[in-house]
């Protein structure tokens, strides 16, 4: 039993940390940052080496995500990197070759349109439909919270076809795709998507029609595990900056970090973040078992725990910074907002707690 990062994971972590410390990203999609990630091999982290990737594992992803969380960079890595590459694995040999290598180099930026507002956090019931039309399909429906679609060249869309989930890869400019982009709370952007009579040729069908359900679920689990790990990085920085602030801030003739009530609250933050960290790693390691239920249980536990911990840490960080904690000026603000965005992505704490309790170990 060994919880240490290996050499590759350590190197990846360090180079991301150095980059983020240097560049201090503002949030949302930044072209130069995305290019840098491509050059570092991050985009193709889990893509097979045959397609120009690094052949990395979910544990490699967790190591990377914790660093990205530390930077609160909120590059659309989770959806454009982790989720998209997992979804594209469902394609046939030609599709994987073409699209995974394009993803790895950054030539294409993929958005993922899986969820619909009516189903709230769940994938189903899904109303977006793909009806056969000649050799191709026509798509109708709506999708919600499609992250960074504004900057994406391609969108991967899930639709129902003859009772089975089906995936399509379309250019974002395809006629019939009506985009409503909106800024997200963490400084990024996402979109509502309306599909009206969207024509998709057979070349746009990813993998086999009607059989994408398991692949979508797996991609979601991978992305959810990544969010849990990102959360840990966010929490770590929120906590560290709180402790640092408490050492500097003087009131009543002393550093406020000398007051026991505050010390105890900062210890509580530490305990929450360490608990979340344990489950983020546990979830990343769960993909070694190729059992869906084992993975889902682990991932749901991690996301729920990170959600609970993240909210406590964020609230306490603001509180213990006093008035300063309410300012936009403080970097803390970006972390708090990113934490909120993560909480409401791919299932919130209540959703995952319920998910967890429905799976027998």
């Amino acid at each position, binding site marked *: 039993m060994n*919880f*240490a990062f290996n050499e590759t994971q350590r190197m990846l972590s360090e180079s991301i940390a150095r980059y983020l410390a240097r560049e201090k990203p503002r949030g949302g999609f930044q072209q130069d940052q995305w290019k840098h990630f491509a050059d570092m091999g991050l985009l193709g982290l889990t893509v097979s080496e045959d397609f120009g990737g690094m052949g990395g594992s979910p544990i490699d992803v967790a190591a990377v995500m914790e660093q990205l969380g530390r930077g609160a960079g909120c590059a659309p890595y989770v959806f454009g990197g982790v989720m998209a590459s997992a979804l594209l694995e469902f394609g046939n040999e030609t599709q994987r070759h073409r699209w995974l290598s394009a993803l790895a180099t950054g030539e294409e930026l993929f958005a993922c349109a899986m969820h619909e507002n009516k189903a709230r956090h769940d994938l189903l019931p899904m109303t977006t439909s793909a009806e056969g039309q000649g050799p191709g399909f026509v798509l109708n429906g709506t999708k919600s919270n499609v992250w960074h679609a504004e900057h994406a060249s391609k969108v991967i869309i899930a639709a129902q076809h003859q009772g089975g989930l089906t995936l399509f890869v379309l250019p974002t400019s395809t006629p019939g795709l009506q985009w409503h982009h909106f800024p997200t709370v963490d400084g990024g952007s996402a979109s509502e998507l309306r599909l009206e009579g969207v024509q998709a040729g057979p070349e746009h069908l990813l993998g086999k029609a009607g059989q994408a359900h398991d692949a979508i679920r797996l991609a979601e689990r991978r992305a959810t595990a990544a969010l849990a790990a990102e959360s840990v990085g966010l929490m770590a920085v929120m906590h560290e900056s709180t402790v640092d602030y*408490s*050492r500097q801030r003087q009131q009543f003739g002393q550093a406020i970090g000398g007051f*026991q009530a505050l010390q105890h609250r900062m210890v509580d933050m*530490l*305990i929450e973040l360490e608990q979340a960290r344990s489950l983020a790693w546990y979830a990343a390691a769960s993909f070694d078992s190729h059992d869906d239920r084992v993975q889902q249980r682990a991932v749901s536990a991690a996301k729920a725990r990170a959600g609970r911990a993240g909210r406590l840490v964020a609230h306490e960080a603001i509180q213990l910074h006093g008035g300063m904690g309410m300012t936009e000026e403080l970097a803390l603000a970006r972390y708090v907002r990113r934490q909120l965005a993560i909480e409401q992505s791919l299932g919130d704490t209540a959703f995952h707690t319920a998910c*967890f309790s429905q799976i027998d170990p």
Partner: protein
Amino acid sequence: MDLNFSPTEEAFRIEIRRFAQDELPAHLQAKVRSHIPLNRDDYLQWHQILAAKGWLAPAWPVEHGGCGWSPVQIHIFEEELDLAGAPRIPAFGPKMLAPLLIAFGTPEQKAFYLPRILSGEDWWCQGYSEPGAGSDLANLKTRAEVHEDGFMVNGQKTWTTLAQHANKMFCLVRTDGCAVKQKGISFLLIDMDLPGITVRPIITLDGEHEVNEVFFENVFVPRKNLVGELHEGWACAKYLLGHERLHIAQIGRSKRELKLLKRIVCDHSHALHTARLKERIAEVEIDLLALEYTNLRLVSEAQAGGEIGAQPSILKIKGSELAQAISELMVEALGPRSLSFLHTHIDGDGPLDTELREAASIVRQYLNWRKISIFGGSNEIQKNILSKAVLKL
């Protein structure tokens, strides 16, 4: 990063599980699982079974009777016995005093006391806390007047767990009244049969007799019963408290109790409350899973020979909170049934039917477990420790 147990470790787990299946007496298991307090004979019976197997003190150095197991193996051992519902042998002799004697005792003390701990001939209790010295242990006032051939002890200890069964006490006493607090404390081994010692029960709010006051009136303790240097007992106390802390989360016990909780929720199911309870149980179960892996991170670090530091305080705080949460949820799940209450003295008799008896035991357990966040270094003190050692505030 590889979070799997090795095949050897898995095989070891099966071995411990089989041992529990074969050797744990059914009546003891039933008592532990139903939260019935154990009596002296119960503890000694299980003690003898473990000792016969050579598993009473697995963490001791092999030359003194330990098993040479790795930290992961010890973790598995503790967890499996808890899962099975085995009694917990009081830690005072085997896990607290013994490591201290091994590190700081004279050859004579080691040769005399260690085998008696293993055999069960000596039952040790801990003379630390006093009415004026709880969290502020260094404020202790029990005096030991230094004579050439020994010490004259006068004073009082409190919260002395199971002193009613003990024949020995390790005791912190003040041997230098002029020195400031921590300096001037000595560590003595005291025979409970000596004249001048009185043990008085303290009944706790669960109705149990688990702890005691112990009074010393002109008790003479021979010089050879001093452990470590005169006036240097505080170092002994700290060593003892800092030792073997990787099991304080008590994951196995909480897992066992969680299973019981789920069964109770099923038995006492009610449309309005069950869904809410199930959600809270899921939250606790997730947190317990997290604690299990936080614990394993530390065990794994110890196995790799790394520095552990103050991190086990996290295990104590979280472990106690989760154990308490589970006990609270059990009382909630019982609902109106949790009105029933049994005084310990009428266990085994009484007019209650099985269901009420089980409910009464659970209520009593819930009350008893309010202590977990208080003893062994209160959770507030644990947070002070973490704040100082980890946050460096």
